[in-house]
Every structure is written in C-alpha cells, then in structure tokens.
C-alpha cells in the first residue's frame, strides 16, 4: 500500500501519474497558515464554491498571529492546527495512504495536502449531481409515501434513517471487491435480524468478486449459488417506506451506490402479492385485492396451457359453444392450437420488450402497428385466430398485476404451454408439479420461500391471502426469523 510522502511535490506527482490525463482532476496549490499546500478534488463531484467559502473564510478568521521569529509553520504544525486546533469542518480521520486518498476523492471529497506532512485532511464538500428523490415508476401505489430511492448510496441511507429513527438501525458501508470499487451498504435492525445470518451475509458480500457492481442483484449468484433457479427468494424495492417495513420484520437490505434498487433478503413468495397499499386500505378491500393478485398470477401462468390442453384433450370441460368456436378457428389456421398460442405469446413478448426499450417518441407507432398486426391483419390472413389472441392478451395483462414475478411467470407460462401442448394433460400436471416443487424447494438462510403464514399453510392466517385489520395485526408483529409453528 503506497503511503503518502512528506513532500508535497512527490504526492502531486503521484496523483498526476494516476489522474493527470483526466479532465475533471483539479489541483490548486495554495498557502495556508503560510505553509505550502494543495487542494485536490474531482471537478463536478466536490463543490468548489462551498470549499472556498469554507476554507478561506475559516482560514481568514482563524489565522494564527505571526510568530515573533517570522518563520512559517511547518507542514506538520499546520496539519495539527487545522485538524485539532481549529474549527475547520474536516473529516476526523486523516488520509494516510494513496488508496484512501483515491477513495475519498472519488467519493466527492476535497483533500488538503501539506508540504512536510505525510497525511492529508479531507473535507466533505460533495456537490455531486444526482437524480433527485422521485416516485419510482415501477412500484405504483395509491396511498403512502411517494419517495423513491435515488442513485446515490448516502442519500438512500439518509432516507432510511429518516424513517427508522432509533439506534436499532445499523447501516454498514463497505467497498466491493470490484475493479470500480463500488460502495454498498448492509442495513438491518440489530434487535430484529438474526445475528448469525447478518454475519453470513456480511461475509458472503465481502468475499464476492463481481466484475462490476452496478446493482444489488449482481450479488445474488454469491448469496444463492445454484446453476438453475426459477424463483429467487430475494425481493427488490425502490421505496424507502417498503424497505423500512422489511427492516422492521428483521430482514436484511443491501443497497449499492449508483442504483436505486434495494435488495431485501430473505423474501417470501406471498410478499409478491402484498404492497404498502394493503395496509392503508380496509382489510376487506385489501383481502379482495390479494385474492385477485393470486388469481391473476395463476391465470397468467396456467391459462394458455390449460386452454390448449382442455380444447385438444379434455373438451368436456369447456362449454360446447366455446369449444366449437375454438375448433373452427384452429381448422382455419395453418398451425395447431399449441403452436399458434406459442407464436402469439412470443410476439407479445417482443412487443413488450420493444415498448420498454424504444424511445418514447416512437411509442405510439409501436402500439398502432402491434394492434393492427395482431388485432386485424393476422386474423384476416388466417394466421391466427381470435380465441387464441384473446387468451394470450388476457394472460399478458394479468402478468402486470404482480410485476415482481414477471421473470418466473414468463418462463413458467412458456413451460406450461409446451408441456400441455406436447404432452397433454399429463404434461400439464407435470408442469404444475414442477412449479410446485420449484416453490417448495426454494429457501434462503433456512427460511422456506413458501410459508409460514400465508396460503396454503394457513390460508386464514392474519396476514396471508386475506388480511385482518391492522390493529389486530399490530398486537403480534411478524419477524421473518420466528420459529415455524
């Protein structure tokens, strides 16, 4: 580890070698307390205005009287005076080596290096430009907080601290072992989280070596090593209010600098069907919405496969009028029902992805083209049939009721359709069974993904598929680490 030199020129030369080519690297040689020094910072990350105000103002008011022998202060003396004998708002821990200097500079601090002193003084004068605290677009709600996490880690930590105003909240910040040295934070409530699990997570994150860390989800392969997984027992939120609620349940939150997405672990399957609005609405309405969400999820996963299976193999389970419309439609199209359904689902996925990635100005064109192509031209040319398009559309819409389960739902839907289409009712049962096993076989840190409170273990539990009123729920709080009954 390269230590700082007592010579200012050597330190500046070393920094020049590292950052000299960068346009935002800023060095200003100054004299403070009649001692040669230099301010180093990254332009755009530290606020020069506040730095000069702070430094010069303080320097001019607190300049020591000239000594009678008219000798300037040495670097060490000026350092001691500034750090310990003045009111400069400097960081309490000095900068002692080059990596620490780089770390603080890239955090937006300004560092004062003095000639004749092997330590630097850092000033928190960050003036980083970042996306403001806005409402997250991916998590809509009717009532409750509209704040969402920003991209800056420190801002996010402050948002959590504002909500949990007790000493219980611990927020540990570490640097990940990546080329970019990205910061991440491990947050938990020390009286609620399982200390052994916190230690395990801390150790795992410290040992993780992602090439890049741009989001908290990049840690998942280290936290949950597995070659194949359909459901991941972690969840994500961009809402500080939701994150605070999870912390109060004893869960652990991981935040990464540069991403507003907070990873919550461990997560339960039932949590995908809950939202903050549940607790702000009446218990009856909240229960109704949860039942609707469960129904929508199962509809989106199983409806295409069940539709194909019933129409082809088990016609007695469909009203005859509908059955003959489906049969007539299949007869008119060149593909069998299962292939047609697969094609429509894939086309809908393409349209969804295009809608997500394309520039907003082209949004209307895609909507128009997809509506015309699917809704009219495909039927007129006899390539697709109306029952299939209707079913596929219903499942596509139902999927957005539980966006957090989007990825597994899409894959499951395709899997169920393939299984039902080419293996009939036996394939449908097999697909359902595989879905069941993938849910029941998933868990994290000893917490099973399915359970304990919600359906099917205890469907009439107080906060399961249906919810009791909040007063009753508040009598006995839920902690993720509590023993299963």
């Amino acid at each position, binding site marked *: 580890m390269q230590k700082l030199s007592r010579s200012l020129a050597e330190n500046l030369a070393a920094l020049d070698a590292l950052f000299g080519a960068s346009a935002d690297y800023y060095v200003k040689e100054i004299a403070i307390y009649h001692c040669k020094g230099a301010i180093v910072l990254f332009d755009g990350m530290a606020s020069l205005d506040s730095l000069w105000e702070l430094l010069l103002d303080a320097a001019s008011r607190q300049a020591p009287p000239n000594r009678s022998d008219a000798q300037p202060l040495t670097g060490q003396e000026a350092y001691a005076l500034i750090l310990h004998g003045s009111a400069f708002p400097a960081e309490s821990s000095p900068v002692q080596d080059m990596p620490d200097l780089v770390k603080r500079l890239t955090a937006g601090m300004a560092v004062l290096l003095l000639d004749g002193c092997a330590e630097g003084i850092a000033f928190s004068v960050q003036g980083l430009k970042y996306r403001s605290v806005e409402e997250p677009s991916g998590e809509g709600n009717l009532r409750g907080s509209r704040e969402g996490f920003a991209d800056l880690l420190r801002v996010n930590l402050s948002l959590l601290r504002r909500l949990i105003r007790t000493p219980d909240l611990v927020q540990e910040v570490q640097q990940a072992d990546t080329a970019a040295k990205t910061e991440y934070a491990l947050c938990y409530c020390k009286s609620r989280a399982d200390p052994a699990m916190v230690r395990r997570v801390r150790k795992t994150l410290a040992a993780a070596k992602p090439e890049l860390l741009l989001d908290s989800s990049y840690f998942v392969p280290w936290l949950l090593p597995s070659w194949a997984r359909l459901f991941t027992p972690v969840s994500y939120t961009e809402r500080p209010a939701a994150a605070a609620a999870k912390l109060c349940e004893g869960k652990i939150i991981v935040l990464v600098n540069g991403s507003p997405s907070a990873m919550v672990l461990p997560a339960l399957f039932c949590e995908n069907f809950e939202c903050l609005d549940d607790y702000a609405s009446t218990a009856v309405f909240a229960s109704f919405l949860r039942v609707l969400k469960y129904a929508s999820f199962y509809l989106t996963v199983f409806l295409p496969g069940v539709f194909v299976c019933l129409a082809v193999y088990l016609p007695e389970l469909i009203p005859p009028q509908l059955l003959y419309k489906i049969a007539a439609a299949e007869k008119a199209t060149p593909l069998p029902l299962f292939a047609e359904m697969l094609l429509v689902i894939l086309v809908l996925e393409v349209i969804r992805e295009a809608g997500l990635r394309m520039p907003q100005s082209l949004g209307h064109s895609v909507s128009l083209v997809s509506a015309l192509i699917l809704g009219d031209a495909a039927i007129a040319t006899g390539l697709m049939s109306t029952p299939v398009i209707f079913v596929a559309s219903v499942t596509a819409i139902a999927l957005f009721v539980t966006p957090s389960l989007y990825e597994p739902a899409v894959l499951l839907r395709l899997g169920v359709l393939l299984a039902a289409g080419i293996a009939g009712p036996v*394939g449908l049962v097999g697909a359902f069974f595989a879905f069941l096993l993938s849910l029941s076989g998933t868990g994290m840190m000893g917490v099973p993904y399915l359970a304990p409170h919600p359906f099917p273990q205890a469907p009439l539990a107080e906060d399961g598929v249906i919810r009791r009123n909040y007063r009753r729920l508040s009598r006995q709080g839920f902690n993720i680490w509590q023993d299963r009954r």
Partner: protein
Amino acid sequence: MKQKEVFSGPALGLSVLTAALADAAAPAGSVRTALLSGLLNAAVLSALILLAGAFWQRSQAFRLAWMTALPLWLLAELARTVLQAHAVCREEFRSMALLGALPLLLWAGGQLAPGSWNAAARVLWWMVFLGIVLCLPGLLGQMHWARLVAADAARPARSVQALVYAEYFFGPPQCAGKTPKHLLGLPWLAFAVQAAAWLGMGLVFGAGDYPQRELLRAWNAGVFSRLDALLLLVWLACAFYRIGFLCTALRTCLCGTAPAGKGAAE
C-alpha cells in the same frame, strides 16, 4: 423459521391417500361386512404400528431387520405407483408422457429435502379437498340408498384385504425411535378412502360390477357433463408427488440423513 427435516403428517397422509385411491376396489361381498372388517383392519394396523415402535426401541435385531426390509418395501411401492400412474395416463389420456418425465421425477426425489415435500403436500391436500368438494354435487343426485341396501342383501358376507403401506412404519427411522401420533391415523385414512369408494359404488351402481373409474365418469352437474378427467388429474398430481416422495424416503433410509435442501443450506 428452520424446518425439521422429517416428513410431516400431511406428507405421509397424502402419500397413503394416493395409494389408497388407486387400490380401493369394490368389495366382492356385502358392503356392510366390508365396512366392519375394514374398521377392524384399521384398528389392528394402528396397534401394530405402536407395537413395532416399541420393538424398535428395545431390539437391535428388529431395528436391523426393519431397516433392511423398509428400503425394499419403499422400492416396491415406488414401482407399483409408477405402474398405476402409467396405466391411468395410458388408458385415460392415451399418453406415455409419464415415462418421459420419470427420470426427472426420480432425480427431483433424490435432490429435494423432506421439507420441500412437506410444503408441497399442503398445497396438494387443498387440491384433494377441492376435488372431493367438486365430486359430491355431481354424484349426489345419482346416489340412492335403496340401491345399496338391495344390492347388499344379495351379496355374501366377505371380509376385505387391509391396505398396508410402507409409510405406516416410517415413524421410528425418521423420528429417533419414537412413533409420532399422526402415524396411527394413516390406516384410518386408508380405510376412509376404501369406505368412500365402496359406499359410492354401492349407492350409484347398486349391484352392478363396474370398475372404480366408472364412478368418476358418472359425474354430472349443471353445464359440465363430465369432470372425471379433472379428478383423475388431481390424483395424477398426487401420484407424481408419491413417486418423488418415495424416492426421497428411500434415499433417507439408505443414506441415513435427508438430502440437504436448498432452504436449509443457504
């Protein structure tokens, strides 16, 4: 939140229910005698389970014999369930897909921990319950007590064979020698399934000698003229469960410990 890695009562019960549904056949003799002898069989089996548990704790030789016989028995049950499920797939759905999925099913059985089967069992029990609830309205209108009485009077009194499954004797190996109370209920569960099948066949078909699946095919209510396929699919899901469950049980017996589940390891 950590689960114990032993099979729960619902898991064992579901396995027994699946087997009993496949094995229950109309009695050759009178239903009344069959019910009485079935009750007696269930009581005797419960007592045997308790006795076996007591012997397990006292006799090393008995334990050894038990641990040698149990895996073989589980293997035999596994093979039987596979054949039964395959027969249903072939006869009812004209499909051989079970054979294609069998390697995956056996692999899943070897990988998953008992905790996963316990969780899956609870879901499938709800499906079974739903199946029973759906079954009744379609058959109630066709059930006539007079048919049962008239048919019964014409038949000789004959006892029925007890349904004995490996799950009954699974308690001591997985619970450190103790016999959990839920094991004693398993023979009664099998008897309940048998009794429901006998009564159903008697009330609907009377003296007619029909295969058990005809009872399901007789279902008819409202807009839906048939629901036997759906009910058979519920049984098939339970059969898939039983195949995987028996694999895990076999592995537990042979290896001595349950396979490490994902939930426990992470």
